[in-house]
Structure formats: C-alpha cells, structure tokens
C-alpha cells in the first residue's frame, strides 16, 4: 500500500487510504480516483491541486459519500476521527454530513435553492444539527452566523431570496450554512472559481478568519496554485487519478520534485517577469478510461525514460514530509 503524506499521528483528523473510485458509464470504466492516500491533520489546510478531470472533486465527494449512483468506491478506506466512513450507512452518514464534515461548492449561484428565502435555508440547517427548539433561539443563531460571515445587515436580508443577493454574498451564505454546526473538516471544492478576483480575496479572508475562530481543518480543492499558495499548510498534487507529489507548501512551491509539479509552477505567469509566451504543459490530460501505462504523466514529460513507460512509480519520501512519485525527480 502506498503511504500517505505523513505517518498518521495522534492529531490526524482524516485519513484516506488507497482509495479507488471508478465510474461505470455503461460499460466504460473511468478510473477517476485510482489509489489515493492522503491525510489531513487537525486545524490544517491541505490543498488538493490538479487539472480539470483529474479526479480531485470526485475525491472530495467520495469523502462525504455523495457520489452519483454510477460511481463505485472500489477499494480503500476513509477514516475520520478513527471511524471508517466507508462502513457507515446512509443514516449514519447524514449525521456526519454538515455536522462533522461539511462542503462548500463551486457555484454559489446554483447551490442555494431559488424557491426558498435565505433565512429559511440557513435556519433549517441549524435546526437539523442543533437542539434548538424555540423559534427565537434558532433565529438568534441564524443572525449570529450570518453576521459571522460578514453580512452585517443580517436581520433585514434573511427574508430575501437568493436572486436578491450578489454572487459573493451567496457564497457567504453557503459558508454560513457549512460552518453553522461547527464541523471539524470543511471540504471546499473550488470555492472561489466562479467569483471575480476582488471577491475571491474577500471570501478567502473570510475562510481564514472563520478557521481561526472555529478551528476546523480545510481540504481545499482547486486548480489555482496561487490560491493554494496563499492558504494551505500542505499541498497535494493530483494527476490523472493519482497523487504525484505532496508536501509542505514551502517545499512544493520552491523545491518541486515531480516533473509535473515543476511544469505546473513554470506555467504560472508572473507579474514581475517579462515573457514572450506563456509556458504550457504540452499535450492533454489522459483519458481516464484508458490511462497511460507506467507513470501516467510520461507521454507529456520531457524527461520520460523507458522505466517511466513500463512501471508505475510509487510515492516515496524524498525529504521529511515530502513525497514524490517519480523515477527521475527534479534535483
């Protein structure tokens, strides 16, 4: 079995062990997550970075068991506070969802129900997870949480419908719902990708602030390296259903060892550096119904050798807490 980012310690909150999630599209098997091990410690922000379609969102949803019916968790385990989520049934999972692990979605314009007022939606989440029976208690809690996410005119806005809010405000409402029950882990799936840059920054500030106050861990799923660099303690790079490198933010950003990570970082445009053309990683992400043999990145890698085609590299520790799956890592 492959090893995770680090040896599990007492502080480990979530441990994904050799997880495989396959989609069965009428006979075509898509290996979206193919043997991923990852752990998240208490209070930590872990970034999961990868191109579209590399399986990062599938991993996020697999943790909450929110996969569509045609997806199958083939093997592996997910341990949350030492309890296996894989073994839990739907009823037990409902207590985990929103209560102990919650999720923030990419698109705030479609994640709120357009037919209910914002106040109704938040108070129903609060009533679900907290033993508040008096109407006034629920309302007080709603106002409190909405203020916490920076909507100051909370009282006046609760009877409004989602379409009466700006996109950034809607994402604040989504965050309010996600953190209302004091979860231990928040899975943020591209939380700012559909927002414009200035709003992005404010939403990230908010997440930062809430995390310090409520002390939850975050799994930040994104394709945006800059965002991960800002927020994360550790970063995991995913490529074609597998983790290729993980380690501390500083190590990943300044001393990337995997050829893919290296290429990704080289492709980030920098303001102070004048270039004629942007560097792009050649080729396209592989088809996950029939992934390349050996190292999945080899068809796009400038340094591919015979061994890269024939056998699959495993994640190995090159430094403390820094793992790379590459036969010829960057020195």
């Amino acid at each position: 079995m492959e090893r995770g980012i680090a040896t599990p310690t007492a502080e480990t909150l979530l441990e994904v062990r050799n997880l495989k999630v396959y989609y069965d599209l009428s006979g075509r098997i898509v290996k979206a997550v193919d043997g991923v091990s990852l752990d998240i410690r208490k209070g930590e922000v872990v970034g999961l970075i990868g191109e579209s379609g590399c399986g990062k969102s599938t991993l996020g949803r697999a943790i909450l068991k929110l996969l569509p019916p045609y997806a199958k968790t083939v093997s592996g385990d997910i341990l949350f506070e030492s309890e296996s989520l894989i073994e839990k049934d739907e009823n037990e999972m409902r207590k985990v969802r929103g209560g102990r692990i919650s999720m923030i979605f990419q698109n705030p314009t479609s994640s709120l129900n357009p037919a209910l007022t914002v106040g109704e939606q938040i108070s129903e989440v609060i009533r679900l997870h907290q033993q508040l029976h008096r109407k006034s208690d629920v309302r007080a809690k709603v106002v409190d949480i909405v203020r916490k996410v920076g909507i100051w005119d909370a009282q006046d806005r609760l009877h409004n419908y989602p379409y009466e809010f700006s996109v950034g405000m809607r994402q604040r409402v989504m965050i309010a719902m996600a953190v209302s029950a004091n979860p231990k882990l928040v899975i943020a799936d591209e939380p700012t990708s559909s927002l414009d840059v200035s709003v992005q920054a404010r939403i990230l500030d908010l997440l930062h602030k809430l995390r310090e106050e409520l002390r939850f861990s975050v799994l930040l799923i994104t394709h945006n390296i800059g965002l991960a660099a800002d927020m994360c303690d550790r970063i995991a790079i995913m490529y074609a259903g597998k983790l290729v490198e993980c380690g501390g933010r500083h190590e990943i950003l300044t001393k990337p060892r995997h050829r893919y990570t290296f290429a990704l970082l080289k492709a980030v445009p920098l303001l102070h550096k004048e270039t004629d053309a942007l560097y792009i990683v050649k080729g396209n992400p592989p088809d996950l119904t029939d992934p390349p043999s050996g190292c999945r990145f080899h068809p796009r890698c400038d340094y591919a050798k015979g061994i890269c085609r024939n056998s699959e590299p495993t994640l190995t520790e090159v430094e403390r807490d820094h793992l790379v799956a590459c036969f010829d890592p960057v020195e």
Partner: protein
Amino acid sequence: MNALLAIVWTEVRRSKLLAFACTWMIITVLMAAFPFAIAPYSPNKIFPGNAGTPPSLQFPFGTDHIGRDVLSQIIWGFSTSLLIALGALLVELLIALPVGLLSGYFGGRVDQLLMRITDAILAMPTIVLLIVAVTLLRVESLVSIILVMGLINWTWLAKTIRAESLRVREEDYAVAAKSMGFGDLYVIVRHILPNIVSTIIVISTFDMAWFILYEATISFIGLGNPTIPSWGRLLYIGRGFLGTQPWISVFPGVFICLTVLSFNVLGDSLSDFLTVKR
C-alpha cells in the same frame, strides 16, 4: 402575496386575451359557486307550454325540447362540471405526485417499475377507457366519474413531474442539501417540490380544461346522469334539435369553448410568470 397580485395585474393589462380569460373565469366560477343565487330558475323546472321557445326576455337562452330554461341549466351545469373537474384533479394529483417524485428522485428500479405501469396506462386510448369504465361501473354518481377521470388522466402529469424531479435532483442545491446532512424526504419536499410547483400548476390548469371536455363528452354520448344538469347533457339533448332549436346546444357549446380556452390561456400565462427567479 401583494407582489404576486401586482405581477398578475401587469400581465393582465399587457394581454387582452389574458384579461378576457380572467374575466371569463371570474364570471363562470362565481356562477358555479352560487348557482342558486344567479340562475333565474331551477335547472329541472319544466315550463309547460314553453317547450322549445327561442331566446326571449323571459328565457334569455331559450328553453329545451321539454321546456326547461337553458340559461339556468348552463349555470347549474357548470357547478357540476367544475366540481367534477376539481375532484378529478385532486385524484390525479394524489397519484401523480408520489409516482412522479419518487420515480424521478430515486431513479433505478423504483423508476423502472413505476414508469412501466404508467406507460401501460398511457398506452390505452383515454376516451375509450373512459367510456368503458363509466359503462362498466354503471354508477351514474359524480364520484364514479371523478374517480375514473382522475385514475385515467394522471399519467402525463406523473411523467412531467418525474422529468422535472430528475432535473432538480441534479441541481447543485439538491446535492448541497444532502451534503449538509438532509435526508431524501426533506430534499424532495423542500427542494424538489417548490421548484416544480409552477409546472404542476400549469399542467393542472390544462387538465381542468380536459376534465371539463371529458365530462361533456361522457354526457354527450348519453352516459351521464340524466337527472343532473351538465353542459354535456345540454349538448346531448340539443343534438336532436340542431336544425329546429339550435339554441339548446349552441349556447352551452359556446360556454364550453370559452371556458376551455380561458383555462388554457391562463395556464400559458401562469407558466410565464410562475417561473422561479434565479
């Protein structure tokens, strides 16, 4: 509520057809609700010596072949028609809502089973089924007609509700609700239903029109209850006197046309402004 009324008012002022439909609906529904106050005579009262009178001041729409006032029969008849249509709609909703919601939301085997049953009923020609059922039951009470129409007509509504649930189930907010720990029943009632209710209202309006037509059809071919006044019964009576006493069937015919048209216009407009804003 005030906002809704404001929208309705703007729409009504914009479209003359809708204004007409609304006016017509208000008039006929009032007629149906208070026939005893509005109708000049009892619908079954026979005026001896006045059989087959053409429209006059005493009988604005004339009398039928045995001397009953046509206007009074139209007014009382719509009471019957509306009651039957509403009853049938209730039966239809009671079946179509659970079938459509469960089928669309859960999919898989539940969907397969429910939809094959729906298809089987859908495959039968409605009007023939209606005639056979009414004949077989032989009960000429309103309840049997209501049940039969509701039991036959729910399939399209169920199919539509299924398709809509299927769409809403995949919406981010339904997935997000599950991610917050809500159960399936909650998601169905609070997220799916409110977002498809406009579609249900629109289809219900169209179905009301159908029920009125079906009832008229059943009575027209002589399967209705001859003691209860209805629009179909008037058409049935008038059929034999079309050449000599056309008013017996022409007036109820016009009422059926306008009422069905109004329901359809209303349904169309509702589908425009009931759409949930995003």
